[in-house]
């Protein structure tokens, strides 16, 4: 059973467009992280959100944690080719502190 549903699985858009990636669950998380992974390397942490309703901005990236701490979104404004990569969300379950991963969104930004 996939506890953290990430969508879309794959996204290919033109440079300059906006996009949103979602992570949804029926479980409550004490915190949720977003990672970006380049081919052949390990994922690298982008941001951690810990408070329901929290919004964090990292340049053109906006991360939001749902009010009930069950879902999160990543919005990229004016995507650039350098944003290409695999984006992963991961949540720490409130019940047992286990780290649960989404399946990832493969993002390709075309010039």
């Amino acid at each position, binding site marked *: 059973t996939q506890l953290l549903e990430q969508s879309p699985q794959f996204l290919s858009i033109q440079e300059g467009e906006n996009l949103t990636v979602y992570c949804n669950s029926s479980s409550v998380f004490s915190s949720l992280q977003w990672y970006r992974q380049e081919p*052949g390397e390990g*994922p*690298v942490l982008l941001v*951690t959100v810990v408070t329901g309703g929290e919004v964090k901005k990292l340049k053109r990236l906006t991360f939001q944690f749902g009010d009930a701490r069950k879902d999160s979104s990543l919005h990229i404004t004016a995507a650039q080719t350098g944003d290409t990569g695999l984006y992963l969300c991961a949540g720490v379950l409130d019940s047992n502190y286990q780290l649960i991963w989404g399946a990832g969104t493969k993002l390709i930004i075309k010039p």
Partner: protein
Amino acid sequence: SQTIHQWPATLVQPVGSPLSLECTVEGTSNPNLYWYRQAAGRGLQLLFYSVGIGQISSEVPQNLSASRPQDRQFILSSKKLLLSDSGFYLCAWSVVLGGFSEAFFGQGTRLTVV
């Protein structure tokens, strides 16, 4: 600062041969340690995690085993590799502080079983 070392970076092994991948962490004590496997362009599948020396939890029944002989050392092994063991293996560590946990990854090992 904390660092994590994972080796080798790439490995080509014949079917039926043994496997040993090693991961060490520096700069932290009593970390949670993880072994993940990742299919191309996809998410992470948790294989094993450890909360302390000699404590190993297996998430997926498979041809692999893990050991933690020292606090900051985590080893992934197999006695006889299968073709299906091919993949990208990642070691990671984290420290849980009041429900707040971030994972830090090694560079990964690309394993090809031929």
